[in-house]
């Protein structure tokens, strides 16, 4: 009998928290400053509220489908074509996340540490990790997250606390930054920052009960919101607008400022460690979900024979964009503007259709 993997709320929450918050080490504080100006923290709170509302709706609709993931729901809603289409959407979305983040993190590591190494050499480290992660499976990945995310979060908070001397709340004025229109109207699609919540609906079979999925969702959203708001607040209060738009790696530039007496300097080395750890975990999980979705969508028996082919494809695709800037343009202007449709609208539509289809046979039975 095949052993069914079950893991706890903390493991699942750690996965989702890392998935959502890794972008803090990438470009999120700058994205928030671009959108909200000096009101980056207000903008972050606003999109967080939207994400909470979206999740509340989805988890309420999810009650009758306890233990089923989004692909199961898609199959209930639209049969085999539904499962395949949703599977392909998840594969392409997770594929973009994996390739974009791998390219951007590799380019940033080249920028900071390995300046003369070829990009393919840097990416090879990521590929080895995601192949190993995929072979070990979801249980190993979840336990690794449960262990590592606390250290990553502690390192991140250490960096935030370390720049307390440089915080100037005067940099947060004017209070509404780029204006109400930019923050609340044009900024609404940026709820795509929480796109990675979608992966919680693929973890539901591992969480078993609906109550566990609900608790995991709210806890992971809560922690993620706290970390995102803190990053936006600290970044815009340390670097005044518009100079905050110029930093390639915002948290790295914050870490470089830390100098506590004669003993604590060069804290960017701590940043490099937690940044690499977060990136490796993020890409490994995205890669696992690509394989999971591919196996389930096309009803394959095993995903392990596809690990190395997909790893090769991911690495090849990551080299298609000409440079780092092109990846950031696609990530910020396209993915983080439109992926809210995949993350929130698609699950809501599928759940509504599946619920209606579930009610129909019951009504036919009553009529007879």
């Amino acid at each position, binding site marked *: 009998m095949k052993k069914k993997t079950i893991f706890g709320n903390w493991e699942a929450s750690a996965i989702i928290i890392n998935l959502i918050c890794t972008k803090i080490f990438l470009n999120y504080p700058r994205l928030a400053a671009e959108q909200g100006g000096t009101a980056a923290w207000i903008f972050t709170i606003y999109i967080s509220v939207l994400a909470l509302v979206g999740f509340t709706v989805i988890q309420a609709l999810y009650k009758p489908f306890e233990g089923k993931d989004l692909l199961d729901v898609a199959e209930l809603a639209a049969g085999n074509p539904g499962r395949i289409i949703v599977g392909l959407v998840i594969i392409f979305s997770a594929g973009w996340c994996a390739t974009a983040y791998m390219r951007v993190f590799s380019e940033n590591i080249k920028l900071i540490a390995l300046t003369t190494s070829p*990009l393919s050499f840097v990416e090879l480290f990521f590929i080895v990790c995601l192949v190993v992660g995929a072979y070990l499976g979801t249980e190993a990945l979840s336990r690794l997250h449960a262990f590592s995310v606390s250290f990553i979060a502690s390192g991140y908070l250490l960096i935030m606390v370390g720049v307390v001397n440089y915080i100037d709340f005067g940099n947060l004025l004017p209070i509404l930054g780029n204006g109400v229109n930019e923050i609340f109207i044009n900024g609404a699609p940026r709820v795509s920052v929480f796109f990675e919540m979608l992966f919680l609906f693929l973890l539901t079979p591992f969480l078993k009960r609906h109550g566990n999925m609900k608790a995991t969702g709210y806890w992971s959203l809560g922690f993620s919101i706290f970390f995102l708001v803190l990053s936006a607040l600290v970044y815009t209060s340390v670097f005044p607008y518009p100079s905050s738009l110029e930093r390639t790696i915002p948290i790295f530039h914050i870490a470089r400022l830390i100098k506590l007496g004669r003993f604590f300097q060069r804290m960017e080395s701590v940043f490099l460690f937690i940044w690499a750890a977060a990136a490796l975990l993020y890409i490994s999980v995205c890669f696992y979900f690509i394989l999971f979705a591919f196996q389930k969508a*096309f*009803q394959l028996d095993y995903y392990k024979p*596809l690990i190395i*082919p997909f790893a090769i*494809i991911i690495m090849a695709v990551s080299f*298609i964009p000409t440079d780092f800037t092109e990846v950031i343009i696609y990530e910020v202007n396209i993915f983080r503007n439109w992926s809210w449709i995949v993350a929130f609208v698609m699950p809501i539509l599928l759940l509504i259709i599946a619920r209606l289809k579930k009610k129909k046979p019951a009504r036919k039975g009553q009529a007879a």
Partner: protein
Amino acid sequence: MISGDYIVLIVFLLCVAVYTVSYGVWTWKKGNRFGAIMVFLVAVLTVALPVYILIFKEV
């Protein structure tokens, strides 16, 4: 003239593609025709994409 590194890389890619195709054949024999076709597509991309990158892009 193709360098030795590229030849080694292409041989490796072909080995991976052959392994993937064998999984596709097994899936086909099990009755999952559509799944097998998707696995064959993955095998093709495993060779095509890296070769495209080697020819047209700088790594």
